[in-house]
């Protein structure tokens, strides 16, 4: 593993818009690397700069140590899978795949062998003479992959390759892409706005926002330890709390009427307006008196009718269930506590119909371990818009919550608007 593909201080402006803003990035050989972000974050522009379709205003692109910034697209050893596949409609599947080799004037025998190998890889030997408009979307996708891979590119660029497929096909292609990557061992640079795709495929992800890299790391690093509110809310779902860091907890100190056994200086107390104090792991050595934001993933929270027994580093707060969505494998709750509306995901690991599930309007306790909250370095209020909100209509019997609907709801529930 070496530093193989490098973007050095690359910028690209379109008029006043900074599409890519001084980005530096290195990708290792053989890596599956994703650029993830919402539309307009510059991920596609960065890919097009590497492909050679766009010239950067500043900076340079190095491929295997060689500066390729000024090379035209047809002289770069990279190939692209386009979002629209961009297959040649007048050529058969076979001719589409052979195109790159024919243009490179390779010997006929070599072309035949290489195309046959690719057709076998994508399992379309029997469709070789069909035209692109005679095959399905998933097959077009596979032909596009074969057409690029047959040229043995040093990097394969994938621009939202699954966006045009339906959900079922997307999941199948996801697995296929992963298998192909393992098989050919080429570096993949994958551009997507879908965090699920990026998480399941990538070795590393660069989360982009407004032309800059917001955070770079493995999928687990990015999910578990988001650096900013943007990353926390864009990848998966989360809850934000803001407060002032207070002194670390004394031994056997009392927190919210309960005994806390905290001694460690690694844990800080977070004072929140009109809210019980929270304890959180302070790995960033943030000093007392500083205003910080805390992010907690909904699935890290536990919800219960009974107050949980006190335990070291356990945060416990009380609230009322405002919304419930039953999703089969899990149920999502929105719980109101003061000004906060907290989302909680409960996985159903046991047979649900044997239990009496928590319903709208019930008073519940939410608890989590102090380690599971994560202090953010950067926070922007508008990132809260990325957080998933409960549905507008509450209390209706829908297919999604019909199991819960069998038990009469204890009292009416106010339809929720986001509290903050």
């Amino acid at each position: 593993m070496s530093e193989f593909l490098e973007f050095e201080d690359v910028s690209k402006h379109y008029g006043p818009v900074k599409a890519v803003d001084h980005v530096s990035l290195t990708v290792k050989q053989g890596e599956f690397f994703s650029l993830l972000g919402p539309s307009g974050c510059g991920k596609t522009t960065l890919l097009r700069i590497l492909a050679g379709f766009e010239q950067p205003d500043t900076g340079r692109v190095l491929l295997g140590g060689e500066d390729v910034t000024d090379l035209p697209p047809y002289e770069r050893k990279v190939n692209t899978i386009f979002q629209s596949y961009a297959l040649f409609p007048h050529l058969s599947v076979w001719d589409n795949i052979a195109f790159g080799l024919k243009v490179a004037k390779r010997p006929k025998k070599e072309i035949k062998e290489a195309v046959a190998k690719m057709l076998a890889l994508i399992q379309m030997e029997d469709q070789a003479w069909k035209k692109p408009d005679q095959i399905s979307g998933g097959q077009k996708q596979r032909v596009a992959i074969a057409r690029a891979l047959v040229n043995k590119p040093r990097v394969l660029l994938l621009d939202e390759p699954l966006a045009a497929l339906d959900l079922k096909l997307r999941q199948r292609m996801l697995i296929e892409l992963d298998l192909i990557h393992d098989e050919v061992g080429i570096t993949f640079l994958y551009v997507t706005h879908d965090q699920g795709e990026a998480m399941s495929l990538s070795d590393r992800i660069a989360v982009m926002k407004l032309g800059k890299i917001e955070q770079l790391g493995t999928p687990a690093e990015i999910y578990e330890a988001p650096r900013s509110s943007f990353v926390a809310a864009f990848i998966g779902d989360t809850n934000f709390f803001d407060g002032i860091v207070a002194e670390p907890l004394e031994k056997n100190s009392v927190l919210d009427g309960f005994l806390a056994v905290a001694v460690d200086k690694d844990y800080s107390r977070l004072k929140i307006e009109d809210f019980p104090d929270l304890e959180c792991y302070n790995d960033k050595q943030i000093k007392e008196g500083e205003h910080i934001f805390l992010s907690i993933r909904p699935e890290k929270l536990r919800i219960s009718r009974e107050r949980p027994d006190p335990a070291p580093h356990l945060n416990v707060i009380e609230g009322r269930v405002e919304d419930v969505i039953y999703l089969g494998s899990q149920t999502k709750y929105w719980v109101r506590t003061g000004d906060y509306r907290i989302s909680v995901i409960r996985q159903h690991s046991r047979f649900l119909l044997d239990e009496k599930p928590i319903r709208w309007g019930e008073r519940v306790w939410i608890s989590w371990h102090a380690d599971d909250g994560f202090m953010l370095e950067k926070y922007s209020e508008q990132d809260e818009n990325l957080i998933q909100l409960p549905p507008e209509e509450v209390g209706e019997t829908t297919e999604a919550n019909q199991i819960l609907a069998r038990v009469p709801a204890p009292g009416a529930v106010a339809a929720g608007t986001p509290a903050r």
Partner: protein
Amino acid sequence: MKPSRFPLIVTWAVIAFFYIPIVILVANSFNSSRFGGSWESTSLKWYIRLMNEPSIWHALTNTLVIAGAATLISMVLGTSAAFALHRFAGSKLQKLHYSIIYTPLVLPEILMGLSMLLFFVALKVQLGLATIAVAHVTFCLSYVAMTVLARLQDFDFAIIEAAQDLGAGWWTTVWKVLLPMLAPGILAGGLLAFTLSIDDFVISFFVAGPGSTTLPIKIYSMIKYGAPPLINALSTILLTITFLCVIASQYLSNRGRQAA
């Protein structure tokens, strides 16, 4: 409510209005009588007479040479124009360009013919086949440009990028991808241009010189000397060529559209 029959009746009336004269003309071309009023017997005699009329063959050759040249030139120029119009759509220059390309479709032909004549005379150009062909290009290229432009509207330019991405330089991309994909559109436009050139009378009349009589001009002069049955036969042949071109042009546009 029962759907009104009115639109259907109107449609048939319009079709009858358009085509009855043509049907009469075609039928009369097979009538052995000299006079259209009475039917003698079915015969190919006028067609045979036509075969032995060297001046008509000369005029037909002229027409086809002019139409062929005008079509080829306007296919090249029209396609280039369509590209410029599509690529830089929205710029002031291209809006002007669009009006210039569009104008010949609506401009009175007599005006175009007259201005072309004045232009050639001012330049002291010998009137002949070349001047007719050039004059035909001025309007033919508009039809090619419009047809190709329509094709470009639903053309996925990622395909051009894909070709370059796969190692094709600019010329390879044009030859291997762009032209094959646009060929149906270019051909359709070309066929349309061909039919228009073949039966253009007004413009040809202005810019024709000695020895460059085209078929429509020949027909016109034959009417003056009065040989209607021969003209019927000639018109039928002309009509057949035109219809075949239009059908081929439509087929090409449809097939191209499905493929794109």
